[in-house]
Structures are given as structure tokens and as C-alpha cells.
């Protein structure tokens, strides 16, 4: 194990998969000569050459669709969106073409493609650049959606995504690219299965269910709550779809209280689905109503103070935890 950044972890994952399988290529805006808008693809052009690390024009629908077509005939494209806010321009390719092909062709064409890039609100980018797209994509049958929060998960999930025979979205956390964490050494193969949550911290009083950018938030809050004698268990979903129901239910059966903290908006958000499944399956385990902390239901304001008010934060999360603990 050694400590590396989330960005380096993704870079290692890309390099290892490109090295392993000649059918894998990386395509997107600024991925090659510029070394990636967020430097995730740093050095890959030098190492793998322009045949496999391919710059595109600003043309998301075009190159996302190109990826789907290449996957139909056996390549394994990794398509980078500079941010997933821009993937909305390619929504038809990601939602209509990639996941539907296997069904519509009666099982003849699966689409082994990875769409990846930063996702979720960053810092003062305004409404168009701050989308948390996970509920949009998790709603489409045929897609898999994962949301790594640590360098280790970023590497392990991206590598698994590239090897998956279905279309997988790796929604990277824009604010976490420079965050550090312990990751296995590069000579150790690190694959983290899609659909496996991880308990990032054990606790006994309340389950805080989180993913992506809300994981570090939840961990920080758990440390604070400890001072007030509230023991919070932190369940990082890691994958939104498939969803690890067992890990969620196991934690809830232990703590009997749940707060879901999510980076998306409340209406039809990820938390709504998680909440539904908990109450449907283990209603009797609950000692309090399930609560959610999400964004406010408004387009993201540019103003810094207002933006902070829209996003989940420690104050909101602590207050919500106390409500479910009747503390």
C-alpha cells in the first residue's frame, strides 16, 4: 500500500487497462495532447500513442456515439466527458443507444463501454456545470453507475468498469481529484466489484448512507458526532446501480436509524430509491423515519454563500442525524 491521489489512481487504472487489452482506447476532449482537462490522462499519449489516446472536437454526442458504435464491433472504448454536465449533450447516446442495444437486438449486441469523467457540483461553476447526473443515468435500465469516493475505490471501480461487458458510467468526484488515500501497489491487481458498498466506518447508533463527495463529509461528521456520544456507521454505496441492498440492510438492522446524504437533488434522487427499498424490505428494523440530506431543489447559484446553502454540509447533516436519534 502507498498513498496516492484520486487523480493518480484513475490514471493508473487507465494505464493498466490500456496495457492489458489492445481493444481498449481512451477518447474525449483534451485527453491526449493537453493530458486531460483534470490531468487524469497525464502521460498516456506519450505511453500509448495517438492511435489509442484520441483527442476529439467538442462534440459529445458525436464521440459518445462513436464509442457505442466501436463497442458494437468489439472494441472497448473509454469515453471521457470533460464533465458529466456536458454528457447531457450526449444524453441520447448514453441513455438511448448504449443501454438499449442489448435488449433491442435480442441479446446480439452488448456494449462494453465506459463513460467516465467528473460529476457533481464543484465550486462556483453555476447551474450548467454543477449537475449530479447519477439519478438521471441510474434510471436507465442497462446502464451501471458507480461513484467512487476514495483513490482506492476510484482505481478498483474504473478497472472493473472497463472489463464489464455492459455500459458503465464511472462518475468521478470533481472535488476529490487531489484527495489522497492508501491504494495497493501497482503490481497488485485491484478490482472492486460493481454493486458492492463499503462500510467506511463502523458505528452503532445511526447509519449514514453516502457516496462520492458526501463520503468525506459523512466521515468528518461522524468524528464530530463521536464527541456527542453518537456512534455513526458510514456506508459508502460506491455503486448506485447495481445497488448493494444487503450492505444497506445489514447496517440498518444494526443501527435502526438512517440518514441518507447525497450530492444530487432531492426530487427522484438516489436517496429516494434507497429510502423506498429500506422501508419496503426492513420496515420493522426502523426506530425513526428515514431522513435525507441533499441539494436544495434549485438550479445551482453562482454566489458562493448561496451555493453553500444549496449543498449538503456538516451542519445540515449533524442536525438531521440528531433528529433521527431524537437527540
Amino acid at each position, binding site marked *: 500500500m502507498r498513498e496516492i491521489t484520486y487523480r493518480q489512481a484513475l490514471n493508473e487504472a487507465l494505464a493498466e487497462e490500456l496495457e492489458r487489452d489492445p481493444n481498449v482506447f481512451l477518447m474525449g476532449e483534451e485527453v491526449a495532447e493537453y493530458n486531460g482537462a483534470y490531468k487524469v490522462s497525464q502521460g498516456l499519449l506519450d505511453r500509448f500513442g495517438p492511435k489509442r489516446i484520441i483527442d476529439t472536437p467538442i462534440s459529445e454526442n458525436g464521440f459518445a456515439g462513436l464509442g457505442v458504435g466501436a463497442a458494437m464491433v468489439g472494441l472497448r472504448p473509454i469515453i471521457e466527458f470533460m464533465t458529466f454536465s456536458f454528457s447531457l449533450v450526449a444524453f441520447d447516446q448514453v441513455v*438511448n443507444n448504449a443501454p438499449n442495444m442489448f435488449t433491442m*437486438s435480442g441479446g446480439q449486441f452488448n456494449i462494453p463501454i465506459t463513460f467516465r469523467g467528473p460529476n457533481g457540483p464543484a465550486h462556483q461553476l453555476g447551474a450548467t456545470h454543477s449537475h449530479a447526473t447519477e439519478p438521471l443515468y441510474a434510471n436507465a435500465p442497462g446502464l451501471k453507475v458507480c461513484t467512487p469516493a476514495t483513490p482506492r475505490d476510484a482505481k478498483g471501480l474504473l478497472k472493473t468498469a472497463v472489463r464489464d461487458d455492459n455500459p458503465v458510467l464511472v462518475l468521478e468526484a470533481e472535488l476529490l481529484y487531489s484527495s489522497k488515500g492508501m491504494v495497493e501497489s501497482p503490481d497488485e491487481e485491484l478490482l472492486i466489484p460493481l454493486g458492492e458498498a463499503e462500510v467506511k466506518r463502523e458505528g452503532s447508533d445511526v447509519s449514514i448512507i453516502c457516496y462520492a463527495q458526501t463520503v468525506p463529509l459523512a466521515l468528518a461528521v461522524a468524528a464530530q458526532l463521536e464527541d456527542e456520544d453518537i456512534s455513526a456507521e458510514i456506508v459508502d454505496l460506491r455503486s448506485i446501480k447495481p445497488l448493494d441492498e444487503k450492505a444497506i440492510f445489514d447496517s440498518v438492522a444494526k443501527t435502526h436509524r438512517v440518514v441518507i446524504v447525497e450530492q444530487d437533488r432531492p426530487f427522484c434522487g438516489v436517496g429516494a430509491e434507497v429510502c423506498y427499498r429500506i422501508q419496503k424490505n426492513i420496515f420493522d428494523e426502523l426506530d425513526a423515519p428515514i431522513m435525507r440530506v441533499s441539494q436544495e431543489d434549485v438550479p445551482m447559484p453562482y454566489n458562493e454563500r448561496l451555493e453553500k446553502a444549496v449543498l449538503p454540509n456538516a451542519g445540515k447533516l449533524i442536525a438531521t442525524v440528531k433528529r433521527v436519534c431524537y437527540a
Partner: protein
Amino acid sequence: MQRPEPRDEVEMLALMLLIRRFEERASQQYQAQKIGGFCHLYIGQEAVVVGAIAAVREDDYVITAYRDHAHALARGTSADACMAELFGKETGCSRGLGGSMHFFDRSRHMYGGHAIVGAHVPLAAGMAFASKYRTEDRVTLCFFGDGAINQGSFHEALNLIALFKLPVVLICENNLFAMGTSVKRSTSLKQIVDRAEGYDIPGEIVDGMNFREVRDKLAEIVCSIRKDPHPAFVEIRTYRYRGHSMSDPASYRTKDELEKYRLDDPITRLRAQLTREGKLTNEKFDQIDKHAKETVLAAVKFAEKSPELPLERLYDYTYVNSVVAGVSPAKPKESAADTAATTR
């Protein structure tokens, strides 16, 4: 570069007739409510796809839009599998999961059947990208209608195709109408082929009612692409005799216009050429036509008696190679048919 052996023209005429008889029978079965959803017929346009297919190899890639029955038939998908697909049966070319607009046949390199206008042109770019990536000399034939040329995905794809010099023949089947809107009312160009010029792609206009012209022009283009990968664009001028779909009476055009095109019918035209050259007798033609009609009728019988995909396999075609926890429910039982979709 050797061109493939020219396909026998009488066989190609038989293929055009099979397509026409298939579509006529599909129309009848649609009216009898054996076929659901939308159903877009190819009648009048047969020389386009048959001419194009006659110019390529079996391993070249073919992809098209939603008026796709003919493309599958021309690729060699059986009338049985095509009709069964329209009937929604498991024996259909997409197991009854695709329907009229989503015909696929992997073994014959028929890559669909795509129903969002223009959205498959980027896919064609990807298929051709893969050929070039693997240094194969395959060519991708990408068919689309005149309605696709104003869609963003079309423009994005053309730019990428030109930029990456991809081996694609972009085939615009210009039948003058995007649903009910004429090219005149939809497109800011005097002629569609000029779209290609904007992307520095060579373009040509081809008479789509003339099988030989389509085949020869395409053969020339494909031969040039195999030598050195590059895109090409053809605007093939054709006409559909029927409405946009089964529900369209086509009241936006005149009977005179339709009659004018019917007089130039592609099947009649090839038949006359072959007869004049002594390659076809009336008896032989009648025999071919009879065979086409019988094939299609047998296909209806096949489709009728074919099974539907069993309900317990509803979730088998969403994800490949994986049981997805939290997504796939316990397989719904046949008896729970009406609640299957909501019991998660």
C-alpha cells in the same frame, strides 16, 4: 484491389421483389393488427439498398434508420425472421424485443435498425473507427433518410468521420419527405449532397430508381475506400410509394407525383433492362415473383406459429454476463405477468 464478383442481376431483381412482397404483406398484416407499433414500408426504394448491398462484401458493416426491413432482407436475414420480428416473436431477428424499427442480425453484419433520427450516424463512425483501428479493409454503409441531415448527431458524426478519415459510405436515401415535411420545407440547401461539401467529404447524386446506377456508383466508391480509408457521401434520389408509416395517408403530396414515380419503378426498370438483354423471360419473372409471394406467405405462417419470449426471461436481455443485484428482481413468474414490472 479486386472488386467482388458482380452479383447475379436476376438474383438482385428477385431480392427487390422479395422486399416488395414482404412489405405488401407486412402492410396487410399490420392492418389485420398482427403487427404493433409503428411500421415504415420501403416500397419504391428497393433499388437503393439492393444496389448498395450488391456493391459490398458480406463482411462489410451495414447500419440504417427505422425503415429497415429491406436492409435486413437485403443482407440475407430470412423473411421468416423478419416477419416474426414484426409479430413480436422470439424467432424474430431481434427476438421480438426490437420490432419493426430495430432489426438486427449480427451474423450478417446488419447493425440495426435505429429509430432516433440521425442518432445512428455516430455509431457508423464508431464501427468504421474500429475497422481502421484494426487495420481491416471493411467498409461501413450508413443509410439514413433526408430527415436526418438536419439533426445535430448527423453533423457531429460527419465532422468526426471526415476528421478521422473513416471508411464510411454515407448513404442518404432522399425520398423527398421527412415524414410529412418535404426537403424544400426542411433544408436550407438546394441539394442535400451539398451537406457533404461542408465537411470536405466527396459527394455524388445517384438515381435511386436505377439499380445498376446505384450498384456501379457504390462499387466504385467502395473500391476507392478499400485502397485508402476515407468517407464518401451519396445522395440517392428515390421515392416511397406509401406514407411515412402505416398511419400516414400521405395527403401532403399529389397523386400525379406518386404516379410519375411509379412509372419509373425500380423493379419494372431492372426487369425491362434484363428482358431487353435476353437475360430474363416473362415466365422466369413470374416464377421469381411467385416464389417471393410464397416465401412471404410462409413467413407469415412461421411468425404466427412462433412462440413469444417467455415472461420469465424478461430480465435476460438488460445486462449481459451478470446477475445484477439490486437491479434484477427475482425472475417474475408467468402467472404474475401483470405485476412483473413493479415487483422489485
